[in-house]
């Protein structure tokens, strides 16, 4: 084995990840840890200042409930999320985050994030739940607060350390192993409790942007399913693994379309000029009651556009040119029109520049002048982002005080937001069935976990034991791709092509092809069925076998090897769960062509799964969908 220094770190609470949820966890845990004389350690594979999905900045905080100002109630938010997810959410989790999210937003503001306010100090809302911000440095501000809190409480953080496997002590989490992405160091973290917050997964499916566009994606390419892998390998029960997210964005660079709807009133129409939102309105009846609510659930909006594309009426265009010309015409004289256009255009480009820079670059490179011609929008490849409009993640306990007689047995086991593995908590993209947390809700959930995990440590204040020989074996396996490369790379003239190993990039391409073709990716028009899914599982098994032959020329490629192994596990959990749920509930995310309709009688429930460590078997589990809040009446949902 290649020479690596082994660094052992012992702590009370270990936070994995450095994104929004992890930063929230750090702030809160540091506070409680200091009171109890405990140590908190955080590990991020990147640099916290710009790591995770908020790296490039955002222009809105998407979850703010305004409880104190009497703007909305917790139930209002639960209703909104419940309808968008076609009836399947853990109301206790969504409510718990909703009742804490405002204080997180107030902290952001205290730390220096500029949130737009009118002259009387009221937040400028972009929508019912969305606050406008000057958010280029959003992540930097949030990370700084987390680092300060850790340091002040005597904690520590490690950057550029990639976490691979969990360490277990029976049914309790005992820590994690990982490696430095810059130095020859293996890390062994021992802890009494662990918070998993390593984000969701991108590049599991073949992206629309391939070849020279590789790496462009809606979801940040650096989140690769580490949360799902880690929790699965620890034996945690997972939920909603079928609920992927598919955003509709400008094609090939994934730029946000909202500003173009809003600023220019551009309409999205098909090749024939038809507006699917109007022409296909009746289709929404088939997805009652969810089809009739306003706002229309994200996946159903997708679905109406997909129907056009499947009928050969694509591409779908954002009619920017017409919209802009209309604005110019309304402005009166030519000079006024020019000035107006310039202003609006600046706003729209800014929308790209402060969160999807690649879109601006792609348009500039392709001479796209939105005032002269329309631009294509498209449904992107699937992502795993349980904190946004997907729902995949670990199955976690809700808070005790929100449970009722019916939910208590199924939704509560000891500590808020703890997974089914003792001492292992999950937040943000890592926890499931509590969609629409976004940046603020993920941070709030991290804070909830931080507090609960410290409570767990106080009440279980023993360092779990560790089998050193077993951990050394895991470390050896962690570095195996380097050994494989060292041993075999000389056997061919081109180190990229070698019968003894597979490089991580080719491994990723194979994974993406399987998922794309058989599990409802872009090429399959998001459709799949039992035969396809069975074939996918067969091919994924071959790929899993080949993961033992991954090769890495350096530490960076070692990181790539692990990212793709983790993606593979996310892929398998997804495929198995789509196979298990025999209905189509989110037609704009995926369709089972062998079960094309929604089946409320049998599938108004959670589809959960678990990989059983030791046995190397998967278990599929149905869990009941129980209500804390009465179902909203139809008139409440459509409003007015």
């Amino acid at each position, binding site marked *: 084995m290649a020479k690596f220094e082994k660094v052992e770190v012992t702590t009370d609470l270990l936070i994995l990840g450095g994104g929004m949820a992890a930063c929230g966890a750090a702030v809160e845990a540091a506070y409680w840890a200091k009171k109890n004389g405990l140590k908190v350690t955080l590990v991020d594979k990147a640099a916290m200042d710009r790591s995770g999905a908020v790296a490039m900045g955002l222009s809105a905080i998407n979850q703010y409930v305004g409880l104190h100002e009497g703007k909305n109630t917790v139930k209002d938010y639960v209703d909104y999320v419940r309808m968008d997810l076609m009836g399947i959410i853990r109301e206790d989790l969504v409510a718990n985050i909703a009742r804490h999210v405002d204080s997180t937003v107030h902290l952001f503001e205290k730390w220096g994030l500029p949130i*737009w306010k009118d002259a009387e100090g009221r937040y400028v*809302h972009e*929508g019912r739940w969305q606050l406008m911000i*000057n958010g280029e440095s959003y992540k930097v501000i949030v990370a700084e607060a987390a680092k300060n809190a850790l340091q002040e409480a005597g904690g520590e953080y490690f950057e550029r350390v990639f976490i691979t496997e969990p360490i277990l002590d029976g049914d309790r989490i005992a820590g994690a192993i990982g490696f430095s992405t810059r130095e020859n160091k293996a890390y062994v973290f021992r802890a009494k409790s662990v918070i998993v917050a390593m984000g969701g997964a991108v590049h599991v499916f073949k992206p629309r942007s391939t070849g020279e566009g590789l790496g462009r994606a809606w979801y940040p390419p650096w989140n690769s399913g580490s949360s799902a892998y880690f929790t699965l390998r620890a034996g945690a029960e997972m939920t909603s693994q079928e609920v992927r997210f598919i955003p509709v964005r400008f094609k090939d660079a994934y730029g946000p379309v909202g500003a173009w709807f*809003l600023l220019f009133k551009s309409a999205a129409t098909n090749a024939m000029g038809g507006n699917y939102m109007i022409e296909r309105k009746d289709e929404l009846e088939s997805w009652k009651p969810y089809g009739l609510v306003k*706002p229309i659930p994200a996946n159903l909006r997708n679905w109406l556009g997909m129907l056009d594309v499947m009928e050969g009426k694509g591409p779908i265009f954002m009619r920017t040119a017409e919209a802009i010309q209309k604005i110019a015409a309304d402005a009166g004289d030519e000079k006024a029109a020019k000035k107006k256009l310039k202003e609006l255009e600046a*706003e729209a480009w800014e929308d790209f520049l402060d969160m999807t820079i690649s879109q601006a670059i792609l348009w500039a490179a392709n001479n796209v002048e939105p005032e002269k011609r329309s631009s294509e929008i498209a449904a992107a490849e699937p992502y795993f982002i349980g904190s946004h409009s997907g729902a995949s993640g670990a199955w976690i306990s809700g808070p005790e005080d929100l449970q009722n007689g019916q939910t208590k047995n199924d939704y509560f086991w000891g500590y808020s937001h703890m997974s089914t593995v003792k001492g292992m908590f999950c937040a943000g993209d890592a926890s499931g069935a509590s969609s629409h947390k976004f940046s603020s809700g993920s941070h709030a959930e991290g804070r909830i976990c931080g507090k609960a995990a410290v409570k767990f440590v106080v009440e279980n204040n023993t360092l779990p034991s560790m089998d050193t020989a077993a951990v050394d074996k895991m470390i050896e396996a962690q570095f195996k791709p380097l050994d494989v490369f060292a041993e075999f790379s000389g056997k061919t003239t081109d180190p990229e092509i070698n019968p003894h190993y597979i490089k991580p990039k080719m491994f990723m391409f194979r994974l993406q092809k399987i998922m794309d073709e058989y599990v409802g990716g872009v090429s399959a028009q998001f459709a799949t069925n039992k035969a396809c899914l069975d074939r996918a599982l067969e091919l994924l098994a071959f790929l899993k076998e080949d993961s033992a032959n991954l090769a890495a020329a350096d530490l960076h490629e070692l990181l790539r090897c692990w990212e793709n192994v983790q993606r593979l596990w996310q892929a398998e959990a997804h495929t198995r769960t789509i196979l298990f749920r025999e209905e189509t509930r989110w037609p704009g995310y995926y369709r089972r062509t062998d079960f094309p309709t929604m089946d409320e009688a049998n599938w108004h429930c959670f589809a959960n799964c678990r990989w059983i460590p030791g046995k190397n078997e998967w278990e599929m589990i149905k869990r009941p969908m129980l209500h804390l809040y009465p179902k909203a009446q139809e008139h409440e949902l459509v409003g007015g």
Partner: protein
Amino acid sequence: MAEKKFSGAGDDVCPYCGKKMRRWVGSLESAWGFVPQFVCFNDECAYYIEGWEWMRSQFKQNVSYRYRFNPDNGESGPLPVWSGDALKDGIVD
């Protein structure tokens, strides 16, 4: 500018300019969820006029806001607009 409290649900008069507000819905895609609300689209309204300078000076943004009131739950607040006739095509009365 003094804090102005809204007089009550169902009221459709702008507390800043005293003019009748218009019934407005955000687009289908908008985060407002297509719920009819009252918005003051009076271009002479001080709240809207002063908003431009306020947002420029405080947030370096070329944006103002109009007064919005949701008669369903009595909640109100500033609705951002990037131009004089932005959002006007959502007027439904």
